[in-house]
Structure formats: structure tokens, C-alpha cells
């Protein structure tokens, strides 16, 4: 099959699976998951074929696989949509295909396939367990089929976004994922917390989306196209970067890039729109959590990386950053450190990961903001692998803990609170070792983990190009990352079990552990494709394939960084220092009371939720319910309308009393008056209330006024 045709087909199987499950197979759980996994496998297969063909093409950046069709007639021209596989999308497609397939397989086990239906389970609430042979055992998710339909639709959105050659279909995929994240966060919609979290996620990201829509409109207007390859021509970029936009001193290119970037702030949960992501952990953990945290949020970073030529229009390597780039770099670096501080004080195993995701995305955003294109992509991909691994691992832990909870029957124990765990390494060895790999990759454990290579590259880039503030900020954030990661590992897996439930935790089925093993291979191995050329000893052993390949997306290959010891030593110190400190502090801690980092300000996430509630949600609700609905519509506007009634009544009675009665009745006799009286009497019953009467009369006023206007103004 021609590669282009194949690319068109990649997103389709999951969406077909969605429709199949929703319309036909939803009663049959086995059939539903088979359809979904089969579809995910087909997409994975297509992606791998495309990926292999893509890496075989020399200068793929110059001659990508592309194909497009007319979609929307716009006057005399067309808006085209199409697909494109260039080095960037090929690299992203690779990790998307793997992580998506792993989620699908993992979900089978996580939702207790093969277990009996629950005794009191209800659609919309998490399963509570079933009684079998006198024991309480986990029960299958009542909405099992629906879950697979949703993640199918989600996969469609993600694939569409990746293979798009234009911003419009990127936005389509983007929003479809937004819908899926809404549906999945609110999967257990019977819980008010899940319902609210779903709405919060949708609305917060939508704030970014409307800015993005403006940016897309602006770009479309300014260039007449939304296709990347037509926008990223030297000519177009030059024009865009030299036209001032009139806003904040940005060029047109800068303003468009910033507008699009605000979409990313929402989607990738960057400050100040980060508030939705931790709450998104309400979804069935960790599968959907992972969808939002490891895959969907990557879409935001992908979009800003995609728009890099626009963002950096007018900038060249080594020069001072453009205002738009500075803004992006600032948001990224600030978010990286800001979220890391919150992560330190969280006790929920998933929330720690959620904040760590926000922080790591900040690293990527900061990297792209300072022009470190390849480093940003590299970290995007390695992070996707090890964060997916960590989320699935945390789900495995929770699932194992839930087993313990069912065993003891004490439902007051929160299976997600890390202080209820401890010593799980013995109970859940596969989960432990894979989680350890993921955690070390996240911390940037030197040399062996993928996270080290990608994070080091960002730090090196920041240092070498003289962005010292960013460098220091990110280094501190990296230190905290290692610290809270080790805190998490220590509290969860090391030491002794702190509760009975943890003692009875159990390792999960292969459908859950196999994906962990696959992902941990990438969490280690993917780093080796991007080892810098000048790295001591290791550099040059394996060619820096990643730099050559992904860098080729840009018009000019980014220069290779000169080696410097300072960032490397910094990387080593922060990673190893953070890990040791985390272990040292938490190895003997038994309860949250002993934890010195449970600072209220951090624990309450700097009170952002509360602040937003008082600053935006409450005033806007008041504005809607009271100001607009009551005061403006029912008050002012309707009152003005109701004035017409009495006014008309006044005119009517004046005419009656001062014209009809004296003139008509007495002058023309009572005959006509009788007729009028008869008509009036018969009309009266339909006038049941005052307002109606007023309104009837208002037409009289309107006709009189209209007549006057006509005769005195128009006919004069």
C-alpha cells in the first residue's frame, strides 16, 4: 500500500471501533474489548510500517510523506486538509502507537475482565467487589464496553492530531481528545467529585482553546492557508515576523504563536491553567489518568513544537529570544518549578505523578521557548514512555491495594494514599521493578535511563546558550523531581507494610504487568538514540540518530552543542542528590505527621482552586444568574417592553374619552358605538391579564407611531 494511503488509514480503526461498540457490541464485553484492541493493533501496525518507511527516507524533512484534499470551499479557493509524516510526526507517531496499544491491553486487566459482576455495582460508580466462594473478590467494571469505546475515540483523536498536515485537523483531534478526557474523567459520573472534575477539565482547557481558535483564524487570514508546509516557507515567515500586530509589541508571527500557545497552556496544564490536571485523577485510575497525563497533554507540547518555526520567526540560533519565545520559556520554566514544589507535599500516589507531569511538561515548554527544538522533542518522547510506565505502575499498585482492601473489608483505607502502603516490593515485584525504572528515568538517573539523556540535553542547551535563569530554575526543579520521586518509591515500595491492606496486596495479571515491562524497555532504551556526539566516553559510540532525524524537520539542522562539564555535573548532582535525599528523609517515616514537607501552602496547591473560585467562578455565576437573567432580561428589557402596554392603554383611553365618546358617539350617533361596544365585549374574554392587555395595545402604539413617521418623515 502506498505510504500516503496508509497514513490516511491510521486513525480510522479506533473510531470504527468506537461506533461498533456503541451501536452493536456494547452488551458483549469480550467482543467489545476485542474490537477495541484489534483496532488499536491495526493502528499500531500501520504506524510502525509508516515509521520504518519514514526512517528509511533520506532527507525526510525535505521530502515528507504528504497528501491532501479539498475540504471547505471558501469563495474561489479551498481549505485543504491532509496528512503529513515528517521526522517530527514520525517520531511522535512511534510513541503514540506504543503507549496507546499498551493502554488498551492494560485496561482489560485493570477493569477486572473475567471477574464476576458486582453484588451492588451500578453504572456510573466504581465497582465495589463481588462475593464468590465466601470471599470478596474484585468485580468487573459495569460500564466495561463503554470504557473501550471511549478510549477508542480518544485514540482516533490522538492519531488524527499527529498525522495532520494542518492546524484545522490538528484542532479537530485536539478537541475530540478534550471530549474524551471529559467523558473519561467523568467516567464514574455518579460521584459528584468526578462530575465536577470533568467539567473543570473541559472548561479550563476550553479557555485555552478559544484563544487557539483565534490564533488559527488569525493565521488563516494572514497566510490564506493552515497547512504547515505552506506556512513555514521562508517568505511567509519573513512577512509575518516583520508585520507588527499592534499588541504588546509582538510581530504578527509572535502574536499568532502566543495565541496558539495559550491553547497549549490549557491542554498541557501549564501555569495558570494547570488546575484541571490533578483533579483529572478522578478518572478510573490510572488508565484514563495516563491518557490525559502521558498522552493527551503531550499533544499540547506537540502543537507548540509544531509551531516552532512560527514562534521563532525572526530569531536565529544564538540571538536574543523574541518576546514570544521569552513568554513561552518563562511559562515553561516557572511551571516546572512551581508544580514540582506542590508534588513534594502530595500523599495521593496519582496526584504526585500528576504534578510531576505538569512540571516535566514545563521542562519541554521551557526548552522549546529557548529554541532547544530537538531537546524538547526528545524529552517529550522519553517522558511519554516513562510517565506512561509510572501511571500504569501506580494503577497496578492501587489495584493491588484494592485487593488488600477487599480482603480486610476495611473500606475506610484509601488505596491511593502512599502512607497506607510500604513494603510493596515483595508483594508486587514486577510492578516494583518497572516502577523503579520509570521513577529513575523521571529523576534522570545517570547514563542508563532515557530521562537522563533528554533532561541533560535541555539543561545543556540552557547553559550553553546563556539562559542562566532558566538553567538554574530547571536544575532546582530537577532536583525536586528526583526528591519527590524517591519519596514516592520509598513510601510505596520500600520499608515494611504500614497497614494490613498493604500486607495483603497482590501482584496483578499479565494483562497489566506485560505493558509495564514493554514500557520499561523504552524508558531505558530510548535514551540511547540521542546520546550527544561529544559526550565523554559514550559519545560517538552510537550515532546521535535522534538529533539528525528530528532536527531534519526544520529548514536548517540545529547546530550540535559543544560539550560542557557544568551542565553535566549539575545533572548528576541534582539526580543523585535528590534521590539520596528522598530516600534518606523518608526511609523511616511512618505517618504524614512525621513528614516535614506537609506544608499547608503546598498541600493546598497554593490555594489556586480557592482563588479561582472567588475570582472567576462565583462572580461569573452571579453575573449569569442574577445580572443577565434577572436584572437585564427580566428587569430592564422586559420592563421597557411592558411600558408599551400602559402607554398604549393611555393613548387608547384618551382617544376613547376625548374623541370617541364626545365626537364619534355624540356626533355620529350611537349606532357605531354599539358595534364598537359589541366588539369590545367579545374581545374582553381573551384579555385574561394585565400584561396581555398592554401588549395588545402596544401594537396600536406602534402603528400610530409608524404611521406618523411615515406621513411626516417619509411622505413629507
Amino acid at each position, binding site marked *: 500500500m502506498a505510504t500516503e494511503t496508509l497514513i490516511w488509514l491510521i486513525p480510522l480503526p479506533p473510531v470504527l471501533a468506537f461506533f461498533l461498540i456503541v451501536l452493536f457490541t456494547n452488551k458483549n464485553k469480550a467482543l467489545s474489548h476485542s474490537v477495541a484492541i484489534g483496532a488499536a493493533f491495526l493502528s499500531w501496525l500501520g504506524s510502525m510500517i509508516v515509521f520504518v518507511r519514514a526512517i528509511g527516507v533520506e532527507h525526510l524533512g525535505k521530502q515528507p510523506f504528504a497528501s491532501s484534499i479539498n475540504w*471547505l470551499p471558501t*469563495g474561489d*479557493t479551498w481549505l485543504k486538509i491532509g496528512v503529513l509524516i515528517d521526522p517530527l510526526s514520525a517520531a511522535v507517531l512511534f510513541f503514540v502507537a506504543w503507549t496507546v496499544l499498551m493502554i488498551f491491553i492494560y485496561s482489560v486487566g485493570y477493569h477486572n475482565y473475567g471477574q464476576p459482576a458486582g453484588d451492588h455495582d451500578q453504572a456510573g460508580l466504581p465497582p465495589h467487589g463481588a462475593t464468590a466462594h465466601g470471599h470478596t473478590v474484585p468485580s468487573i467494571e459495569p460500564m466495561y464496553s463503554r470504557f473501550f469505546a471511549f478510549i477508542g475515540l480518544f485514540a482516533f483523536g490522538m492519531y488524527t492530531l499527529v498525522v495532520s498536515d494542518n492546524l484545522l485537523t490538528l484542532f479537530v483531534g485536539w478537541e475530540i481528545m478534550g471530549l474524551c478526557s471529559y467523558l473519561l474523567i467523568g467516567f464514574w459520573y455518579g460521584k459528584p467529585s468526578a462530575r465536577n472534575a470533568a467539567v473543570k477539565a473541559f*472548561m479550563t482547557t476550553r479557555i485555552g482553546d478559544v484563544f487557539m481558535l483565534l490564533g488559527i*483564524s488569525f493565521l488563516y487570514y494572514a497566510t490564506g492557508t493552515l497547512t504547515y508546509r505552506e506556512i513555514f516557507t521562508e517568505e511567509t515567515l519573513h512577512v509575518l515576523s516583520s508585520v507588527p500586530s499592534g499588541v504588546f509589541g509582538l510581530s504578527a508571527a509572535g502574536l499568532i504563536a502566543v495565541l496558539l500557545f495559550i491553547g497549549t497552556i490549557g491542554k498541557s496544564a501549564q501555569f495558570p491553567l494547570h488546575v484541571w490536571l490533578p483533579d483529572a485523577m478522578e478518572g478510573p485510575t490510572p488508565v484514563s489518568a495516563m491518557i490525559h497525563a502521558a498522552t493527551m497533554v503531550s499533544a499540547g507540547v506537540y502543537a507548540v513544537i509544531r509551531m516552532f518555526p512560527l514562534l521563532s520567526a525572526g530569531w536565529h540560533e544564538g540571538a536574543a529570544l523574541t518576546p514570544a519565545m521569552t513568554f513561552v520559556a518563562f511559562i515553561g520554566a516557572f511551571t516546572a518549578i512551581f508544580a514540582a514544589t506542590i508534588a513534594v507535599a502530595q500523599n495521593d500516589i496519582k496526584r504526585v505523578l500528576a504534578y510531576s507531569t505538569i512540571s516535566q511538561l514545563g521542562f519541554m515548554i521551557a526548552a522549546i521557548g529557548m529554541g532547544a527544538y530537538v531537546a524538547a522533542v526528545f524529552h517529550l518522547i522519553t517522558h511519554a514512555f516513562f510517565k506512561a510506565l509510572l501511571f500504569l505502575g501506580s494503577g497496578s499498585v492501587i489495584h493491588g491495594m484494592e485487593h488488600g482492601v477487599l480482603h480486610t473489608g476495611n473500606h475506610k483505607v484509601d488505596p491511593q494514599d502512599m502512607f497506607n502502603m510500604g513494603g510493596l516490593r515483595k508483594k508486587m515485584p514486577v510492578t516494583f521493578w518497572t516502577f523503579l525504572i520509570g521513577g529513575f528515568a523521571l529523576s534522570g538517573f545517570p547514563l542508563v535511563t532515557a530521562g537522563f539523556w533528554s533532561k541533560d540535553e535541555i539543561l545543556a542547551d540552557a547553559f550553553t546558550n546563556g539562559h542562566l535563569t532558566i538553567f538554574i530554575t530547571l536544575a532546582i526543579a530537577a532536583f525536586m523531581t528526583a526528591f519527590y520521586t524517591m519519596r514516592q518509591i520509598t513510601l510505596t515500595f520500600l520499608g515494611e507494610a504500614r497497614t494490613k491492606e498493604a500486607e495483603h496486596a497482590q501482584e496483578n495479571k499479565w494483562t497489566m504487568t506485560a505493558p509495564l515491562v514493554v514500557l520499561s524497555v523504552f524508558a531505558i532504551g530510548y535514551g540511547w538514540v540521542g546520546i550527544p556526539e561529544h559526550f565523554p566516553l559514550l559519545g560517538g559510540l552510537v550515532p546521535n540518530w535522534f538529533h539528525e532525524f528530528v532536527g531534519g524537520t526544520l529548514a536548517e539542522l540545529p547546530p550540535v552543542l559543544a560539550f560542557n562539564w557544568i551542565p553535566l555535573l549539575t545533572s548528576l548532582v541534582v539526580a543523585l542528590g535528590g534521590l539520596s535525599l528522598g530516600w534518606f528523609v523518608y526511609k523511616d517515616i511512618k505517618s504524614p505527621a512525621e513528614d516535614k514537607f506537609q506544608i499547608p501552602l503546598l498541600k493546598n496547591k497554593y490555594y489556586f482552586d480557592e482563588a479561582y473560585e472567588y475570582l472567576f467562578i462565583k462572580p461569573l455565576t452571579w453575573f449569569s444568574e442574577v445580572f443577565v437573567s434577572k436584572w437585564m432580561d427580566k428587569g430592564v428589557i422586559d420592563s421597557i*417592553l411592558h411600558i408599551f402596554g400602559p402607554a398604549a392603554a393611555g393613548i387608547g383611553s384618551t382617544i376613547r374619552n376625548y374623541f370617541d365618546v364626545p365626537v364619534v358617539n355624540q356626533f355620529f350617533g350611537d349606532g357605531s358605538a354599539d358595534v364598537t361596544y359589541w366588539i369590545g365585549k367579545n374581545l374582553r374574554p381573551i384579555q385574561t391579564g394585565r400584561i396581555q392587555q398592554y*401588549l395588545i395595545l402596544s401594537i396600536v402604539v406602534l402603528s400610530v407611531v409608524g404611521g406618523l413617521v411615515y406621513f411626516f418623515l417619509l411622505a413629507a
Partner: protein
Amino acid sequence: MDFLNTHLLSLILFVPTISALVMLFLPSGETKLLRWFAFCASLIPFVLTLVLWSNFDPNKTGFQFQEIYPWYEALHSSLHLGVDGISVSMVLLTTLLTPLAILASFSVTDRVKPYMMLFLFLETGMLGVFMSLDLLVFFVFWEIGLVPMYFLINQWGSANKDYASLKFMIYTMGGSLGLLLGIQMLGVLFGTYDLVTLYERWNSLNAGSILLGMPVHTVKTIAFWAFTIAFAIKVPIWPFHTWLPDAHTEAPTAGSMLLAGVLLKLGAYGFLRLVLPFYPLEAKIFAGALAFLAVAAIVFGAFAAYGQTDFKRLVAYSSINHMGFVVLGIAAAAAAVGTADARIAMNGAVLQMFNHGLSAAGMFFLVGVIYERTHTRNLEEFGGLFPLVPVYGGILIFMSMASLGLPGLNGFVSEFMVVRGAFPVLKIYTAISMIGLLFTGAYILKGIAKVLHGPMNELWAHGEHKLTEINTREILVVVPLMILILVIGIWPMWILEVINKAVVALF
């Protein structure tokens, strides 16, 4: 076949009326017969419209399938029918929604005969507006459409129906006074009401000449506003919108479907057919004002929708919000007339009319489905109904997402085109309208959250109040809408081609 081809429009237009008259002779007690008769009768225009659509040639400029019959000879007015790309899509919308509305009304048991007859009369009234190429006939149909709707609300409505129906009737009629005067003025000036002739002769008026004792410009300005206010009330544009929530809330379900689905489009259609062609200069001058009102409708409409506790009122306000985008597109087209931006905006506006017709009709229907079962529209009294009615819930979420403008469904395409077209011309207004777009999300999600999600209200789970799932007939009403919503969202070309050609020819 020849007869069919030469009389296609008049057939589509009058088959409903003739059927309604035939219904007079059917026995009043046979409700089943009456329902099916009305339904089948309304399918005939739909099938004929499909014939019309397939024979319509988008590449031809001007009006097609024209028919002229002498009417008011003395006034030089004739029954002149014809369609172009814009009106043919509106005709399709009308003939599609009417059978669905009638099918949705199969649960009505009170005075079925007059009820069904009114719907058929209503269809003729609405179609007449879209097909007329004669101003006087246009006005006649414009007013005819009001009468059946008045009675539908007044006789089959809920608690506050008297107030709502009268407000609807008086307000619209009050607005059309100016329209009538404006039409009269044109008729007196040119000695004809024929639109095609008027289009040709109107713009040949010299700017400097004196008309009715005033400079042409002043006359045109007054007439422009007379037309604009009439259509603005119908659309409705802020601040002329307060009749709409009242009318919708009280109207029977099928009445709301047609009110939101088609009647509101009459106003927007008036802008396209009369205001922009006749007053391009004035429209350009006042485009800012129009855009201001449109944005006010978008923003306040969204806020007001969010502020409601009555499900149907929420949906009614959403219509104001969505129709605001139509007017924004019209304003942009007026401001940038002749440019590519104007055409994109105009394409978006017309498509938005069509799309809103589908999604609003669907939303009102779904509200009706649940109202029929629970006899309440109060959002606070629902909650957690999803497990009880999974199919209904899925359909409601789908329709809500269409209304929200989710990419991949129809609303997004048209809203995107409007925003794209309006952005370069009316930057600030477009930017402000984004607040409305944001809050569209808020009220849509509020609806879903209050009805389907959250802890289940046990009242509806057991006993006499047990909520029953949406039935087959109801699914049949909503499925055609869903299919079209999805098809237009994915592949809008089939309808946009038709609209686009007409837009390019006109503007």
C-alpha cells in the same frame, strides 16, 4: 415529469396546505389516522425537495425553478417563486424538520386534528418566505407563519402560555410594521415588488437624487433600519430577544423544534435576501453596530443560558447565542463586502443557520422527551439519570456536543468559518465573542451535569415515576438529525458547495 419539473416549488409550497384542508374532512376521533396522514403529507414536500436538490444546479447564477403567477395585478405583485443556493438549503431544512416535528408530536392527544393542521399550515408559511421572489408575497408568508405558531403556543402550551404567545405575536408583528412600510416604499418607488427586477433597478438610484423629499441616503438609512429591526426581532438579536425564551418554554415540543429550527432562520434569511442586497452601503456603515448587537447576543445569550434552572429555557437561550454567530457573519460580510473574508463569513452564516436548525431542533426535542416523562423542566429535580436511560443519555450528549460546536460535528465548521471571516474585519468583536464560545461550553456541560451525571435522584428510579427509556419513534425523530450533524461535520462540502456558489454570485 414535465409538470413536476415546472411546478416543483409550488408543489412543495402548497402540498402541506392542501393536505391540511383535506384533513378537515377526516374524522376527528381517529387520532392514529390523523397523525399518520399528517406525517405522510409532510413527507411529500420532503421527497420533492430531494428531487429539487438533486436537480438544482449550483453552477448557475440567479434563481432556478422560477414560477410566476399573476396575483395582485393592480399592485403589480405576482406570486413569483424561485430558489438559489441559500434558499434551497433553507427549503431543505424546513421540509426535513416538519415531518420530524410531526413525528415528535405523535404523543399529543389533545385536539389532534387542528394541531396537525396548524403544523402543515406553518410549513407553507415558512417555505413561502424562503421561496418568494416578490416582496409583497414575502411579507404575506412572513405573517402567515406567525398565526399557526401563535395558536400552537396559545392552545397547546404549558402554564404561562397566554403571556408567551401574545408576547411572541405582538413583538414580531410590531417589528414587521417597519418591514411593511419599507416594502411599501420600494413598491411605490419602482412600481413593482418583484425582487429580481428590484435587484437590478435599485442600485441604479443615484446617490445625489432626492427621494420622497429627502436625500436618497436618508431614505435608505431609515428603510435599512426598518428592515433590520424587523429581522432583528425575529432572529432574535440582543436586546430584542426576550420573547424567545418565553415562547420556547411554553411552546409544545414540536413547536419549539420548528420555532428554533426554522422560524428564527426567517429573520437571518431576511438579512441575506433583502437587507444586504438592497442596502449594501448602509449595511457597511452600520456593520459595527450590527456586530455589537450580535456579540451582545452571543455573550449575554451564553451567560443567560448558564444562569437558567429551567432546561428548556437554557436551550432557548442557547439559540440566541448561536444565532448571534449568524448575525456576526452577516455583519462581517456587510463590512467587507466583495472580499474573500466576506464570502467565508457569509458561507459560515448560512451554514450556521442550517446547522443550528438541526442541533436546536434536536435539543428541544430531547428536552421534550424528558419533560413528557417527568413533567418537570427544572434542572435541580433531575440528576444522575444516565444509568436509567443510557440510550437517551448518549443521544443527549451527542446533541449537546453538536450544540457546543465540537470539531467533527457540524456546528464547528460554521462557527469556525464565521470567526475566520469576521476576524480580519471585526477583530475586537470577534475576540469578545470568544467569551460567548467559552460559556457555550459552560452551559452545555451544566445541562449534562445536572440531568445525566451526579448522584441519582431516586424519585425517577422506581415506582410510578420510573423513568422510561427513549422509545423507537423518538429515536427515529432524532437519528436523521444526528446523521446529518455528523455528515456535515466531517464532509460539509456537499452543502457548502451549493451555498458557496450562491454567496459568490451575490456578494
